[in-house]
């Protein structure tokens, strides 16, 4: 068993994981749909409760209208979210595959989410995953029907980046989440002589499989490295991925996005 855990051939692991994930993919999609329906239903119920609290003498007709309005508001929110995602995918200068987040990680050790498309849709490992807010992470393990996305805040995710104002390069890596669950990252190996301020924008540098100029976040604090040779900066990543969000996998990272 120990041998299997540590030195199992990667192809065997990949096939095994692919089989497990392919078996669970339809159920995951079903569970995600059910979760969305439950969230919508609870939003409608909250709407009714709020209306009753505000005015106990509202007629049954008014409650019905309120319920309908809550449903419409949800639909409107969905509409705005989808329209924003659609506009983003249409305007982005790189080829994107739109995907829906179908589940989170199973154990909490890794900062990952699973998207409902895999190698059959043309997704490959180590591709950038973006949202309208910026870089979310990268694809890590790709099964035929689903892919695991390693989030930017995970310590295993490293991205070559630059600070836009001063055009200086560094390496962004995740440092997990704080106690409020907010994602954190930092940019390492910045030239110690460069003057960096809070709120400087950090974008991808274009090295590797990631597209150039994708927004990562803003600098929140600057520190000197222990060795004194470099400085590093804490970043607040702007794009976060929740359950049922829409994400985009970049398939062709050739061009820089328009400013």
């Amino acid at each position, binding site marked *: 068993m*120990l041998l299997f855990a540590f030195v199992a051939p990667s192809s065997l692991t990949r096939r095994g994981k692919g089989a497990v*994930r392919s078996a669970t993919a339809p159920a995951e999609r079903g569970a995600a749909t059910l979760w969305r329906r439950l969230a919508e239903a609870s939003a409608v119920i909250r709407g009714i409760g709020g209306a009753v609290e505000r005015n106990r003498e509202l007629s049954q007709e008014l409650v019905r209208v309120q319920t309908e309005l809550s449903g419409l508001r949800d639909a409107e929110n969905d509409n705005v979210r989808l329209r924003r995602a659609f506009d983003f995918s249409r305007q982005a200068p790189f080829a994107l595959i739109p995907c829906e987040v179908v589940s989170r990680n199973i154990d909490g050790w890794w900062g990952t989410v699973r998207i409902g498309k895999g190698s059959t849709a043309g997704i490959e490992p180590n591709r950038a995953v973006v949202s309208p807010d910026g870089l979310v992470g990268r694809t890590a393990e790709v099964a035929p029907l689903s892919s695991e996305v390693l989030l930017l805040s995970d310590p295993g995710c490293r991205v070559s980046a630059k600070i836009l104002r001063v055009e200086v390069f560094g390496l962004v890596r995740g440092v997990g989440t704080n106690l409020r669950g907010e994602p954190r990252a930092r940019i390492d190996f910045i030239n110690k002589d460069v003057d960096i301020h809070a709120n400087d924008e950090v974008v991808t540098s274009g090295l590797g499989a990631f597209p150039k100029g994708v927004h990562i976040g803003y600098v929140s604090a600057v520190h000197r490295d222990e060795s004194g040779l470099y400085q590093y900066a804490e970043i607040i990543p702007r794009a976060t991925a929740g359950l049922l969000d829409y994400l985009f996998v970049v398939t062709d990272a050739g061009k820089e996005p328009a400013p």
Partner: protein
Amino acid sequence: MKERILMLVLIFSGALLQQLLPAWPLLGGAKPPILAALALHYALRRTGRDLWLAIFAAALLRDGLDLGPFGPALLAFPLMGLLARRVRNDIFADGLVTQLVFGALAGGMAALMAMLVYMGSGQRPVQPGHALLHLLGAALLGMATLPLVSRAASRLEAALPRRRGYGWQ
């Protein structure tokens, strides 16, 4: 047969639910260990083939749906099974105190094994403070999860239709 099918359905549903539930940042990002709790529930109540079927089904799902190699749950869950088989005749499996202790053990052991495998194979950096918080969180969530999961599974099993017995038949 019905009980075995229900067991597998529960384990599969438990895996889906464990993924959908959010992680707890205050507890180091730990999640309720539903699969570990189900594996332990069946390890304390079933014998022979069913015991190992439950343990390996839960372990395969847990490792198959997580990033990294198969290993953490495939090591932790059989260890829990062996331990449970050894002590099952000496404890009252439905007692709340037993379930709290074993729940903490299940959550903590699964998290510890995952941490050891990730550190040993060099797959990811583990910060000591975060790791300790995660282990404590997993143990606490295990304490809360096992009694709930165990009660739900027992009730569902009791609700299964049974064939009426006719004396010597």
